[in-house]
Structures are given as structure tokens and as C-alpha cells.
């Protein structure tokens, strides 16, 4: 068992209840610490939680259904809006699944740029997590610092795509265009500064802060076996000591060519999840640095007229390119019949798209496997028998995004 012996037997923390005086408390959907429109119905005895029932669906927009009425490429902007804190990893997961069905090979430069963008996006997502999580449990100043650095990352995204959050930055077969001049130097500068200056700053603010330690240590405990049985993935699972990281486990998008470690914790509580994510930011910087060093030249999108739009210059000169462009835009990419699911490691856990095609330009079925949805399911196990204030800490440590849960 991953739980430290005696951790659950502290005075006042028990799941044996005798009293009849229960209070039902409605937390959310407008509560600021539920990170969106999550509603929790808490059943309380005094300040202790007997049961916690999440109510979902306030943001449901039926994205999986809408995908079936669009051509394949048109679903990519919708993936941005699911986990809007790390849009690149969602783009990548969907593109990889469709690329597996088509069987196309993304050029080297495209693969490396994808890795850089996904790791930047992971850092940006962890920064929002750190800022909001710390703010939820009292360290209000943290968000000022983390959002300052996140702004730099968003500006890097803006330079590449023109958008800050909903980037729509990937295409099936690669990236729509190469990065602008001076972009790689900018990333390099950010990564160096971030790792040497900013992350140590965050650590200095929190790691020895007695309030932070009291609010996070031995809160939201769940054993390793339970976490797996409840389908929890990502940093929450790794904090319990399981080295389940799909970048190493089942490498995709060239991650097997990079040298990095999987940070794991001792046992799963809010404190270890914090340590895990902090270390993950270091590892992401490490990957970005290697990718920048090895970044090859060449195309960023596959050179296949049936998958990728033709280059802009060709449109004015070649009739074939004109026809391919028209066919791709109006009829969509003709994806061979079959089903595919490529698991990828998002910033919150495993994200993947189960796609089914009948050989046409529109999908038969697209199903998202949203990590936040699956991680949130375990919340009742984590907060049962604990105090109401611990719910806030646990929600923060799970790092949920409601856009992804309700989609």
C-alpha cells in the first residue's frame, strides 16, 4: 500500500459515523475554487465529509457529436476548446490518431516542433495549476508570478499561430507553417531564464512555507492500487510512485529520442503531486532544450496532396494543386476505413481520441478520453472523512479543466 502507515488513523479523521445531524452543502457551480462550473454536493457531519457527489454537464456542448457533422480537419479547433490550458497536446492527440489511420509520416522538423510546442504547453498548464492551486489554499501571491511567465509562453504561441490560447496550431500531417524567424532563440531564452530563475523562485515561496505544508501534506491520500482502479493517470498517479508516463511507456511523436526522467513521488497526496509537477516542468525544459539543439531543417507538413493543403505559391501556378486544394477543403481528407486510438501524455493525464472512419471525409465517431473527467471521478475517495477545506486543496491538486470534462 502506498499510504504511509497510520496516516488514515489520525484523531478526528474516521469514516465511522453515528450522528443523524447531517448537513447537505452545495459547493459550486459558481464557487471560485472549483475551477470552472463544477458543482459538488457535499454531505457533512459537522465539518467532516460523509459523501461528495460531483454534478457535471454545465459546459456540455456535444463536441463528440458535432465532430460527426464536420470534415476531419474541422475538428482540430474544437480540441483547443476542451483543455484550453494546454491546447497543443489536444491537437496532437487528435492528429496522431487520424495520422495512424491514414498511415502518413510527419517530416522530422514537424515532429520536433510539435514536441517543443507540446512541452511549452505543458509548462503553461502547470503554471496555471500552480497559481490557482496556491491561491485556493491561501498563497495568493503565487498566481502573480506564474501568470507572468505563462504570458511569455502565450506570446510565443501567438508568434507562431496568431492566437494565444485556442491556437488551432496543428494539421493532420504536420504543422500548417514553419515557425517565424527568431522564434527558436526566443524559446531558448525563455527556457533558460525559466529554469534558472523562475522555478527556484516558486520553490522558495512554497517548499518551506509552513502554511503550505500544513494544507498539502497527507491531504487527499489514495493508495496506488486504488488510483489505478479508479482510472487516474498523469501527475496524480505518478505522485504515488507509479512511473506511468506514456512518453516513455508507449513513445509517440519521437519522444523516444529524447533523454528525460519521469518524476515520481512517494505516495499520493497533495504535497507529492505538487513536487511531481514542479519536477515535470524541469523535465519539459530539458526536452525543449534537446529538441532545439537537434532541430532539423526541411518541411513541417507531409508532402502528400491527398492529406495536406498545397503550398501557397503552387496554387497560382499549378492546376492540379488548385484541384487538390478544392477537394481537400470541400470534401475533407478521405481517411481509410478503420478505428484508431493513439494514447498521449497530456499535461493532466492520458488524453487520446478514439476515431472511427468509414473511408469518407467525415468521421463516424470521435470519442475523447479526457483525463480530467477520469481523474475527477476519484475525488470522493480522496475527500471522504476529511474537512471541507481539504476539498479545495484536492480539487486544485487534481488540476481539472471543466471544458474537457463536459466537452
Amino acid at each position, binding site marked *: 500500500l502506498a499510504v504511509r502507515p497510520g496516516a488514515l488513523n489520525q484523531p478526528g479523521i474516521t469514516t465511522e459515523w453515528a450522528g443523524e445531524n447531517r448537513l447537505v452543502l452545495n459547493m459550486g457551480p459558481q464557487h471560485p475554487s472549483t475551477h470552472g462550473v463544477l458543482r459538488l454536493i457535499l454531505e457533512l457531519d459537522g465539518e467532516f465529509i460523509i459523501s461528495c457527489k460531483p454534478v457535471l454537464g454545465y459546459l456540455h456542448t456535444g463536441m463528440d457529436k458535432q465532430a460527426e457533422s464536420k470534415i476531419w480537419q474541422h475538428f482540430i479547433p474544437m480540441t483547443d476548446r476542451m483543455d484550453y490550458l494546454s491546447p497543443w497536446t489536444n491537437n496532437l492527440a487528435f492528429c496522431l490518431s487520424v495520422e495512424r489511420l491514414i498511415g502518413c509520416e510527419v517530416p522530422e522538423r514537424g515532429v520536433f516542433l510539435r514536441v517543443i510546442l507540446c512541452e511549452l504547453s505543458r509548462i503553461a498548464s502547470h503554471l496555471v495549476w500552480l497559481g490557482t492551486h496556491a491561491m485556493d489554499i491561501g498563497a495568493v501571491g503565487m498566481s502573480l508570478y506564474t501568470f507572468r511567465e505563462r504570458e511569455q509562453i502565450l506570446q510565443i504561441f501567438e508568434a507562431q499561430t496568431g492566437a494565444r490560447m485556442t491556437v488551432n496550431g496543428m494539421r493532420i500531417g504536420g504543422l500548417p507553417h514553419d515557425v517565424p524567424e527568431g522564434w527558436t532563440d526566443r524559446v531558448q531564452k525563455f527556457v533558460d531564464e525559466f529554469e534558472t530563475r523562475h522555478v527556484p523562485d516558486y520553490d522558495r515561496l512554497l517548499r518551506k512555507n509552513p502554511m503550505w505544508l500544513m494544507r498539502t501534506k497527507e491531504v487527499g491520500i489514495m493508495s496506488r492500487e486504488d488510483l489505478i482502479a479508479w482510472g487516474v493517470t498523469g501527475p496524480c498517479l505518478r505522485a504515488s510512485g507509479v512511473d506511468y508516463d506514456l512518453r516513455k511507456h508507449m513513445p509517440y511523436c519521437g519522444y523516444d529520442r529524447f533523454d528525460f526522467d519521469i518524476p515520481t513521488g512517494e505516495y499520493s497526496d497533495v504535497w507529492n503531486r505538487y513536487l511531481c509537477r514542479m519536477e515535470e516542468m524541469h523535465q519539459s525544459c530539458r526536452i525543449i532544450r534537446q529538441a532545439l539543439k537537434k532541430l532539423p531543417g526541411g518541411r513541417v507538413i507531409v508532402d502528400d496532396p491527398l492529406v495536406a493543403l498545397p503550398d501557397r505559391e503552387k496554387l497560382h501556378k499549378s492546376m492540379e494543386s488548385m484541384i487538390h486544394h478544392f477537394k481537400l477543403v470541400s470534401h475533407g481528407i478521405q481517411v481509410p476505413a478503420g478505428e484508431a486510438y493513439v*494514447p498521449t501524455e497530456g499535461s493532466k493525464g492520458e488524453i487520446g481520441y478514439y476515431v472511427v472512419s468509414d473511408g469518407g471525409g467525415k468521421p463516424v465517431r470521435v470519442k475523447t478520453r479526457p483525463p480530467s473527467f*477520469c481523474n475527477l471521478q476519484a475525488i470522493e475517495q480522496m475527500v471522504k472523512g476529511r474537512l471541507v477545506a481539504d476539498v479545495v486543496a484536492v480539487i486544485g491538486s487534481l488540476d481539472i479543466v471543466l471544458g474537457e470534462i463536459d466537452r
Partner: protein
Amino acid sequence: LTGFREISEIIQGRFQGTQTEFIEANGELTIIWPRETIVDFMTFMRDDERLRFDLLLDITGLDLLPKKPRFYAVYNIHSVLKRHRVRVRSALDEEEPEIDSVVSVWPAANWHERETYDMFGFRFKGHPDLTRILMPDTWIGHPCRKDYSHLPTHFPNTSDEHVTIIREKEETPWPFDRER
């Protein structure tokens, strides 16, 4: 890491005479399994020393309308220990899509089955609380079915029937009453 061939052989060795199909495509293994024995099968998949599928990633539905069989329940399962994954598909009856719940095998199945019920109307027998999760409780129809329009002007919930259902629901005020 166990190869797809070995996985198929282990399963065939245990369940002799079961009508199954093993499809290997795009580097993924899909097992078509009869719905009657799904819980036995999944328990075996989880507990067998050589397979150890301990992580349930996803349960979803599939509606291939003109084709027969029309409905499938799809399970994506993974082994954290052995680092392999397979997909299991079970064909369901078109008139009464019903399958046994695997909540007893993996507690993670709870919300996934609720979502599949919500979107496709599959009934998971033995599920502790099979209610809608993303759509409102009063919603009529199951949106991800192919015969349900994706256009907002075609929503069926504007009927009088919907209003009566809302009125009835308002009289049962509290979600906890359903459980205790």
C-alpha cells in the same frame, strides 16, 4: 511487453469455444467479444498473471447505423505493469441495447458507463446509479445515436412530454434520495 499473438493465445486457451474475433490493424488489437460473458472475460483480463489489464481507460459506444449489428460497446484497457493495451468491442442488440456493467471489475467504469448510457442509451445491468451525466436529467433521446439530429432546430426536447417530465422531476428534490 506481451505481443498481440500471445495475448490472443492466452485468451483462446482460457475461453475455448467462445465466438470471438481478433482484429489486428494499425498496430492495435481489437477483440470482438460476445456481450453475455463480458464480466467473466474482463475479470480474467484483469486478474490473469500474464495479462494484468489493471487500468480501464475508456468505455464508449459506437453506432454504425445502416450496418448490422448496429451498436457496439467499446472498452479501451491497458496494463500499467505489462505495458500493453487492447480494445474490446461487444455487439449489442439493436432494439434493447443491454450489457452487464463492469463496475465490479474496475470502479472507474462508473462514469464512463453513465456517459455511454447518456449518449447512446445502452443499459448497463448492475450499475449502481445509471443516470444521465452530461445531459440534463429531463432530456429526451440519446444524442450520439446516428438517428438523432445534430442540428439544434431538430431538438426533440421542446415537446409537451418534456415539460411534464420536468414537472414530475421537480417533486423529487434531492439527488441523495435516489441512493438511500
